[in-house]
């Protein structure tokens, strides 16, 4: 067909476009994340000197008590927080691209609730119906079956939101649909829990606050590979996410198979959001806030930059929230209160800015 280049002079490199500072910004983010990780290991009811942490992590001898705390408590918590933050950031990024809506994320659209319902159903169907529901499932979940159920629950809700969203196209309607679905799902969970003992209800409420505590090394053996798979699948879909920046119909004219792209995004973001919810509870606001922080830091909408940025920023923000929630003297605050402290201002900022630009959606 047409051959454009010969018509014109050889293309000059586009100097104005070189994003100076992208590698620099990634380097700064990596340093920040490393610092937060060290802080996450150091800070807790028992304070561990940084020198001890460095010695321990590099395999040199340390105080036996310190190493036990690092290995049994702080390291699993740190790994859980960083991975869950990265997963929530990437899932939020995917959903914002899929729905063309800056306020979409797993929590708002009810996907996290769907994951909760999946876990509840799995545990109830798993024989030990009422007995020790939460001891077995929420928080200290070592059961691959429950992870599968959580991801399935997440995927079902996401598919429903997507189907309803195609009928009601307005972006605000979509968010309301997500909120309504959340109510429905939580109502279903409460029906499932009817007759549970006050202790279990207490445990349920605590789980709902969200926490990266209590995930053990055996738990991590399931969580890490599943989240890694989800992140890899998301990375493989970067090209579709970029095509969707111009809207679904433009993406289709550029050769994107919409059905397949949607399915791939549903699968990978459900893996991410479902697994996080199974281990850490439904965590609010991180999924919305992280992609916006990434866009602001890198001044870009290119998903080849945003996706790794969301991983780094998500890991750092989740871990920082967890550290703040556990600061000595503050008692142990709910994690969701901390993430809201970070996330709610971001959402408000986005809403106000969208309104000021009078974007007719």
């Amino acid at each position, binding site marked *: 067909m*047409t051959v454009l280049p010969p018509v014109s002079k050889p293309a000059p490199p586009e100097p104005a476009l070189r994003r100076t500072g992208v590698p620099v910004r990634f380097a700064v983010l990596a340093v920040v994340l490393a610092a937060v990780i060290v802080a996450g290991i150091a800070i807790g009811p028992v304070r561990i000197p940084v020198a001890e942490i460095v010695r321990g992590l590099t395999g040199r001898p340390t105080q036996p008590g310190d190493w036990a705390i690092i290995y049994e408590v702080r390291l699993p918590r740190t790994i859980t927080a960083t991975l869950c933050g990265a997963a929530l950031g990437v899932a939020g990024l995917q959903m914002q691209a899929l729905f063309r809506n800056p306020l979409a994320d797993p929590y708002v659209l009810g996907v996290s609730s769907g994951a909760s319902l999946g876990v509840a159903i799995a545990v109830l169907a798993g024989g030990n119906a009422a007995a020790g529901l939460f001891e077995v499932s929420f928080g200290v979940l070592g059961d691959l079956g429950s992870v599968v159920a959580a991801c399935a629950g997440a995927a079902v809700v996401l598919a429903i939101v997507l189907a309803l969203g195609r009928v009601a196209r307005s972006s605000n309607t979509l968010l309301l649909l997500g909120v309504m679905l959340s109510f429905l799902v939580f109502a279903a969970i409460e029906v499932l829990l009817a007759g549970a003992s006050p202790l279990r209800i207490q445990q349920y409420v605590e789980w709902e606050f969200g926490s990266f505590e209590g995930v053990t090394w055996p738990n991590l053996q399931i969580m890490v590979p599943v989240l890694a798979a989800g992140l890899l699948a998301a990375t493989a879909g970067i090209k579709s996410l*970029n095509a969707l920046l*111009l809207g679904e119909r433009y993406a289709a*004219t550029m*050769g994107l*198979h919409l059905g397949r792209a949607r399915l791939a995004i549903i699968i990978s973001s459900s893996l991410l959001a479902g697994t996080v919810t199974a281990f850490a509870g439904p965590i609010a606001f991180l999924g919305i806030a992280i992609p916006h922080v990434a866009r602001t830091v890198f001044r870009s909408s290119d998903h080849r930059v945003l996706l790794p940025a969301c991983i780094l920023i998500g890991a750092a923000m989740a871990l920082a929230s967890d550290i703040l929630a556990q600061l000595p003297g503050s008692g142990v605050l709910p994690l969701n209160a901390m993430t809201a402290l970070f996330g709610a201002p971001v959402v408000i900022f986005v809403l106000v800015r969208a309104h000021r630009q009078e974007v007719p959606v």
Partner: protein
Amino acid sequence: MTGEADGPVLRLDALAVGYRARAGTRTVLADVTTTLAAGELAFLVGPNGAGKSTLLRSIAGLQPALSGQVLLDGQPVARMPRSQIARKIAAVLTDRVDPGRLRAWEVVSLGRHPHTGWSGRLDDHDRDVISAAMRRSGAAHLAAQEFSQLSDGQRQRVLVARALAQQPGVLLLDEPTSFLDPPGQIALLSLLAEVAAVERVAVLVSTNDVELAARHADMLWVVGRDGTLTAGGPEDLVYSGALAGPFDTEGAIFDPATLSFTTEDAGRRTAAVHGDGLPALLAAHALRRAGFRIVDPPAPVRVTVLPGPDGAGIHTIISDGSAEVRHASLESLARHARRVRSAGHATLAGTGPAPPSRVNQEHSS
């Protein structure tokens, strides 16, 4: 590839387009059979709601045809995978584009989507194509700017460049001039004519601006109110009446001489203008908007254009045979003429200049 004997790139064969719903099939356009060759600029015109966008979407493969087929280089689109269609057809749609913080160059680079591998990584050839597409569209200087900061006209250029970066054989544009001011419309259409001619792309533009289409098109596809499509050269369709037919509207007529719509003026009072050059043309214009039909002399109302004292204004004398009034501006002449028209058969005698407020009342009633 040398494009000497350009065969049809795009062929529509007994195509019917519309919507399938549970309540039944709604056919918007039926039995569309026509072709488009490389290097041709065709305009798809028709009244609002006649099915222009539906036809474009069906050609682009965004919605299935009800029957018949769309052939690209002789192959049916319905049996091509999306990625292959995207290497042959690119589109500029009416959809609002809000690509966040993407810069113009990045928006254009998305056009390489059907040509790149799984990761979307661009090689040197891709970069060359992108830069060439931006230069061709006159958007090269916008490369580093954020798309959201551009004006409507600049956005359209960037979106045309994005479509060209797909290196298509067929370029479809749905109402690309709607949000542009008149010079912007002309500039975009000359750009498209150049793209068609130089890049040997078949360009199909939908618009309801039939005047603009008739002036720029190599081919016109006219959608009628009866759900049929007539294709042909603009002048042939003007001569046969096929162009004006679908737009037939009470009070408006298509003037084949100027290829434009004008107000119905049969039955109006007539006036003649005596004078030369631009002053005479403008005086005639003033009389026309005052509700007169301009005819060759003699006419009951005569306007004589006087050479202005210093060329600063156009002086005229209006006369109906019984009285003559001199005016120092065409605005004043037109106001006078409106009064003559509304006074019916009253003569000029005794109709002195009216206070502005009264004139305004007449004008607005």
